[in-house]
């Protein structure tokens, strides 16, 4: 089930980051107009640590790198397409290459605002970050998880991407940053890794199937141990990854985890092809085959016969 309740993960980001500005003198928030009004009170209280550079995303990341060079812990935020895709060279050079850490927090994801069209979709953000060393990637599926992961990211020193979306699960899970969580255990069937907000649809899809479901609210680093543990005692290694961004993004990580094991992998996610449709988030989720009904059909068609129930 996918819901968009009143308090979104982006709302929770604003309240959590505002609290963190009070709690941690090392923290700074850097904005490029997006969500800026939400930080009005925090900016009044901490005018030097809430910086809005205007609609300037190269500067958003460059200034974030500069803040980090002075020893602060900057959190930069805007929509994913303008946070990772547009200033990607700044992400590569002004953060990682300088040897500094930062937290990037995105909103809108791959299909949160389909009426806004392609320009406001960033299905390639995680794949782009996968070309760079050292990034932790959190994909929370609920506002409570978002707060936990944001606090963890703020307290850390490295490079952390927190991918927030309107799509969410009905309930928060007791996640541990950096670890997959086993939410369903099946015998013999496929291991399905559900990343962030797709979990409820994945659980609905595998109802009655013999599948194990691992929940990834942190997808980088990829929890190799959890995947291998879930496959222990299975005759075959069948792994499905369902991600709310470009399909197959995590497939190389499954392969790397299982180099010594014959295995099959199915990578499900957002299609590379532009849909060139507007409409609603639910329509786009269905168009990418990520709704529960489509997922069930795709997983059960692909899985070996002994997996199916």
């Amino acid at each position, binding site marked *: 089930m996918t819901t968009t309740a009143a308090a979104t993960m982006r709302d929770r980001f604003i309240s959590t980051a505002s609290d963190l500005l009070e709690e941690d003198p090392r923290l*700074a928030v850097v904005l490029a107009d997006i969500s800026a009004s939400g930080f009005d009170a925090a900016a009044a209280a901490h005018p030097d640590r809430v*910086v809005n550079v205007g609609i300037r995303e*190269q500067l958003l990341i*460059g200034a974030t790198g500069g*803040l980090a060079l002075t020893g602060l812990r900057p959190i930069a935020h805007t929509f994913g397409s303008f946070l990772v895709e547009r200033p990607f060279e700044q992400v590569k050079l*002004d953060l990682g290459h300088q040897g500094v850490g930062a937290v990037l927090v995105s909103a809108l994801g791959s299909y949160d605002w389909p009426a806004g069209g392609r320009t406001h979709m960033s299905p390639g953000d995680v794949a782009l970050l996968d070309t760079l060393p050292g990034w932790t990637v959190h994909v929370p599926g609920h506002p409570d998880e978002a707060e936990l992961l944001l606090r963890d990211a703020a307290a850390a020193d490295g490079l952390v991407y927190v991918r927030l979306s309107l799509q969410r699960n009905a309930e928060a899970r007791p996640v541990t940053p950096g670890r997959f969580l086993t939410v369903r255990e099946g015998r013999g069937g496929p291991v399905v890794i559900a990343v962030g907000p797709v979990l409820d649809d994945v659980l609905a899809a595998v109802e009655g199937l013999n599948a194990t479901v691992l929940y990834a609210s942190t997808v980088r680093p990829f929890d190799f141990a959890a995947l291998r543990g879930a496959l222990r005692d299975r005759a075959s290694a069948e792994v499905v990854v369902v991600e709310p961004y470009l399909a197959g993004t995590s497939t190389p990580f499954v392969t790397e985890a299982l180099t010594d094991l014959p295995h099959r992998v199915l990578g499900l996610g957002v299609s590379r092809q532009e849909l060139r449709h507007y409409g609603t988030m639910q329509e786009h989720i269905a168009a990418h085959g990520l709704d529960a009904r489509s997922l069930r059909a795709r997983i059960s068609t692909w899985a070996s016969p002994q997996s199916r129930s």
Partner: protein
Amino acid sequence: MTLTTADADTRTLYTFDDLAGLMSRMTGADKHGPAASSTLDVLWVLYDRVLRVAPEAVDDAARDRFLLSKGHGPMAYYAVLAAKGFIAPELLEGFGGYDSPLGHHPDRTLVPGVEIGSGSLGHGLPLGVGTALGLRAQGLLDPAVWVLVGDAELDEGSNHEAIAYAGAAGLERLHTVVIDNQSATHGWHGGVASHFAAAGWSTATVDGRDHAALFEAFTTPHPGRPHAVVAVVEPKN
């Protein structure tokens, strides 16, 4: 402030006249064309008389920050760093080698005193804006941030994001020195300085080979505004 005196022995050993010799240790050539040395006088005046930096205090929070944005042709920069004791002159001979910390573009993680890794144009000014903001946010109101860019480098749009914002925000501790060797393909209508002035910066345009004029331009007060010095040198072509 612990960096106000030039007390290290190394800094008294070299003069401006020694820089050409230090550069020769990298290039193997006795003479260098204008392009290789376009930054030489500016760098020398900054490191000799303006910046409060020292090899023994490269991690001092109160130090001035010099960000070489125009990372191309860094021989003059390395020569000045060697002259001022940040790097051993012997390192210059390995310039560009696999195990050398001195590449054709500098890497801050390999060279003490190098504040940013650069090479791709248009990154220094945004990093400088963030550095100035970060120092101010920590109550470090004294350290100056200096960014060296080239007139052709200003073609990159990222600079204009930084110039516009820094002017609007009145980042008084941010300084830019533009080495103007008239190498921008389409030039700068009205002169380089006018583009900074229009964004609210204090500006000065001087002869980039005249040490007294450079020093005066570098030390001109500019209350409430960032400051840009355009150092005009011989045309590249």
